[in-house]
């Protein structure tokens, strides 16, 4: 990770927005709400792949709306390249909404793919996956993938995001891989369902 001035700038911006311009709610309320939602989805669909898809879809809807709030509050301008996008997402986006700053690593050689490593994840406090969920392949925080996809699509970037490891599943770290597919030219965002 380079320590270029943009990084420091984003970090400072993120801290400032978090401190002053956002309302805060109780963390446990948030965690418990998300938890009961996941459990309800599991009960309704009974298929963990389907639950993952639903979480991603929900995230997509959230992301499309969240980006407006994000841009309005942070006042951030256009990112010149994908590396800047990554920094903005991590240090301003996640900071603003969750007060966490996931680490950016594993850039691919063409600078179109990177990983986000989450040291802490407010969604997963107290959560322990039952064995069926582990075997079924549930990605508990899959909503994050949808949020990123939805938000970035509204700023003309088509990305694909998925989790590669999760502490809840017994892995060492929680890691999400984000890949830039292409920049969208001036067209109506691709509507899904």
């Amino acid at each position, binding site marked *: 990770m380079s320590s270029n001035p943009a990084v420091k700038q984003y970090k400072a911006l993120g801290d400032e927005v978090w401190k002053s311009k956002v309302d805060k709610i109780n963390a*446990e309320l948030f965690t*418990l709400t998300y*938890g009961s939602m*996941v*459990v309800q989805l599991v009960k309704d669909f009974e298929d963990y792949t389907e639950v993952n898809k639903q979480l991603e879809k929900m995230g997509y809807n959230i992301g499309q709306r969240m980006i407006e709030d994000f841009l309005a509050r942070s006042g951030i301008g256009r990112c010149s390249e994908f590396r800047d996008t990554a920094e903005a997402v991590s240090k301003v986006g996640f900071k603003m909404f969750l007060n966490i700053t996931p680490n950016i690593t594993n850039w691919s050689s063409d600078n179109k793919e990177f990983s986000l490593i989450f040291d802490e994840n407010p969604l997963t406090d*107290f959560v*322990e996956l*039952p064995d069926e*969920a582990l075997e079924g392949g549930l990605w508990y925080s899959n909503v994050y993938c949808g949020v990123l996809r939805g938000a970035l699509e509204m700023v003309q970037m088509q990305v694909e995001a998925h989790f590669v490891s999760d502490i809840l599943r017994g892995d060492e770290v929680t890691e999400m891989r984000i890949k830039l597919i292409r920049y969208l030219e001036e067209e109506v965002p691709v509507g899904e369902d």
Partner: protein
Amino acid sequence: NNPLFIKNFSTSHPDLKYHYIAHTSIDVIEERVSNGPKNLDLYLGLLYAMEDLAVYGYITNTRVKLVVVVSVTDGIIRDADMKALFRKIHTAYVSNVCNPFYNIDSQKSINSKSFARSIETIGINARTTLEI
């Protein structure tokens, strides 16, 4: 009224004995609780003693009963230590309950690995600090 979780730290007594103790303790607790509607204190203290074992009880506001059985040695067990121990167990239980995948109403016992681990740690610490 099935037990949710039982952990045996001793080397001498078999598990079955503890099941029996658990059931008798529940009866004693019910007695104590029904006698006083003004149940302000969660810590119930020494419930009863039998042979070389002393049984301490604690009830949560949600009517979950925690029972700790210790073998009576020469050392005196202080109330404050017992209360601290129960508080730790209560905290571990609360963390377990916050897990959205845990079914509170079930008659089945607690299957959580991290709960088991935390009880294990509490038990081992208790051994060293209280010498039980």
